């Protein structure tokens, strides 16, 4: 039955349409996968019961009967949504996020809630208040983060797709660490209504899957304008699989970001894997040139400031008054706030919102926040300039393969600095996909990013798909599942 476990959505759809298997049998199969294998990797915080999953089944739609899992920060009506935090441990959403509603009406079956870093703050899924998810390729290593549970479940063949969210790396980096495909869309292309905010001007919901086609298929379901998100772009729904011909766009011009390949801490194995990927694209007909973007050296700093500032503001609402956890035995309201937030938030969340309030506070806002916003504008305009010369950009997703659990316990800053490779796209609001491009000697997956200008998702998917068809990486799965 491993064939079914690692089947693509495309193949599963054919099996359902040909009545080789019923949607209920398929659901049973994947529920059993979680029962049998999730104890190895701890990807899920909760798997729902079969009956309640089937309540939302609709016999129509592009993803009819196809099971998947949601990151624990996307609202599903009447289900708990905790952001992997103690402060929301019993919080039940009273409505569906737009992405949830769209997936349900496409007939997709949502099996549960995937583990993540608390409030999506982290790069390893270690800050979850509940459990540490393991990398399916090596259980002593992290799956990446913050959407680590979403990535691990898909890589281990427990579901064919999952949704995550990406504020600085959180879909692409775990996808790379787990050897799968993950997209961070153009800001505003996927609705944030019902996505619990970390940094609202950077957050986007993204798709994780094992193939580019599957990714584009799920993406087609969730992308497009939504009235309920005022930052949503006026873009109509599209079929993002339409261009996946296996060929590149004619005269495609690709820029390879040199600064990233020679960045401090860049692992040689990863750099050469990405170089090989560029070679494949060149063979397929792309015109490749090197580009330099020294401004990227400032992106992590700008990202730290802007994301923490927005987090401080967004997380002010968790106060123990209306929902979620409230600390007991407080004498005054003020004391109740202090104790609830002290006991309800984990260490990483507390430090990030402290940093946020510092950079926003009187006397420091000019030095930090305003300057960071200036740097963000410069990053945007530099990307714009580069895209006058090339259609797409390429850079690694990460400087090192999945690291050991606990490796950065003593120096979180070193882990956060790896956002260098991914956060510039969030700051610029542009789309990027991470796809597998090989393995290290230790058999750990390597990923690289294809980056495009605003709303270039079709070109990104087309290029990623053409690359994928030439390479074996998407057919390789971790042992033991």
């Amino acid at each position: 039955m491993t064939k079914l476990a690692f089947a693509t959505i495309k193949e599963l759809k054919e099996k359902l349409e040909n009545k080789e298997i019923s949607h209920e049998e398929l659901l049973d199969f994947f529920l059993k996968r979680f029962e049998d294998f999730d104890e190895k990797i701890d990807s899920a915080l909760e798997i729902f019961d079969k009956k309640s999953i089937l309540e939302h089944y609709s016999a129509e739609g592009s993803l009819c009967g196809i099971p998947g899992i949601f990151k624990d920060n996307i609202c599903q009506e009447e289900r708990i949504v905790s952001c992997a935090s103690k402060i929301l441990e019993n919080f039940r959403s009273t409505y569906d996020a737009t992405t949830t509603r769209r997936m349900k009406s496409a007939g997709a079956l949502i099996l549960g809630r995937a583990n993540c870093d608390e409030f999506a703050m982290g790069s390893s899924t270690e800050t979850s208040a509940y459990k540490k998810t393991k990398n399916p390729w090596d259980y002593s290593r992290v799956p990446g983060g913050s959407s680590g549970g979403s990535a691990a479940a898909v890589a281990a063949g427990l579901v064919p797709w999952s949704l995550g969210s990406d504020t600085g790396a959180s879909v692409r980096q775990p996808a790379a660490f787990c050897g799968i495909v993950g997209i961070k869309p153009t800001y505003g292309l996927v609705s944030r209504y019902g996505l619990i905010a970390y940094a609202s001007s950077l957050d986007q919901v993204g798709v994780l899957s094992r193939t580019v086609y599957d990714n584009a298929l799920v993406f087609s379901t969730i992308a497009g304008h939504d009235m309920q998100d005022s930052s949503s772009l006026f873009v109509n729904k599209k079929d993002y699989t339409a261009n996946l011909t296996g060929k590149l766009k004619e005269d495609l011009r690709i820029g390879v970001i040199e600064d990233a390949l020679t960045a401090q801490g860049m692992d040689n194995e990863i750099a050469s894997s990405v170089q090989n990927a560029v070679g494949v694209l060149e063979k397929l007909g792309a015109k490749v040139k090197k580009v330099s973007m020294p401004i990227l050296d400032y992106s992590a700093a700008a990202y730290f400031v802007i994301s923490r500032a927005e987090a401080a503001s967004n997380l002010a609402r968790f106060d123990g008054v209306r929902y979620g956890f409230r600390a007991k035995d407080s004498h005054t309201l003020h004391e109740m706030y202090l104790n609830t937030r002290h006991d309800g938030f984990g260490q990483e969340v507390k430090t990030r919102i402290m940093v946020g309030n510092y950079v926003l506070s009187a006397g420091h806002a000019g030095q930090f926040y305003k300057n960071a916003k200036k740097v963000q504008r410069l990053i945007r305009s530099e990307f714009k300039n580069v895209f006058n010369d090339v259609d797409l950009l390429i850079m690694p997703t990460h400087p090192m393969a999945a690291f050991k659990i606990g490796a950065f316990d003593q120096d979180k800053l070193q882990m956060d600095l790896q956002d260098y490779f991914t956060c510039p796209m969030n700051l610029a609001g542009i789309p990027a996909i991470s796809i597998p491009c090989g393995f290290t000697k230790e058999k750990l997956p390597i990923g690289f990013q294809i980056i495009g200008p605003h709303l270039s998702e079709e070109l990104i998917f087309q290029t990623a798909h053409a690359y994928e068809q030439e390479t074996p990486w998407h057919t390789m799965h971790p042992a033991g599942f």
Partner: protein
Amino acid sequence: MIKISKEEVLKIAEITRVSLHEDEIEPMIKHLEGVLSYAERVKEIAADIDEPSNKNVNVFREDVVVKTDSEKILAQAPERDDNYFVVPVIIEK
């Protein structure tokens, strides 16, 4: 290198509405100093930047009443009385 005093970190904790226990103060100072000293580099190049900021646009919608079941929301309150959220005393006598 940015230096943060104990007084300053306690002030930020107060703004953040989060208590800091005595043994948490020193590690928090260290962490803030590390991140902020790194983040400070935005200042280096920002002085030379003259990029106009993006124009913000307002997105309006009709102000219509949407019926919601308030019971579902109130049911999640840590403490309630009828249609009210109950909190500890606000001003001590």
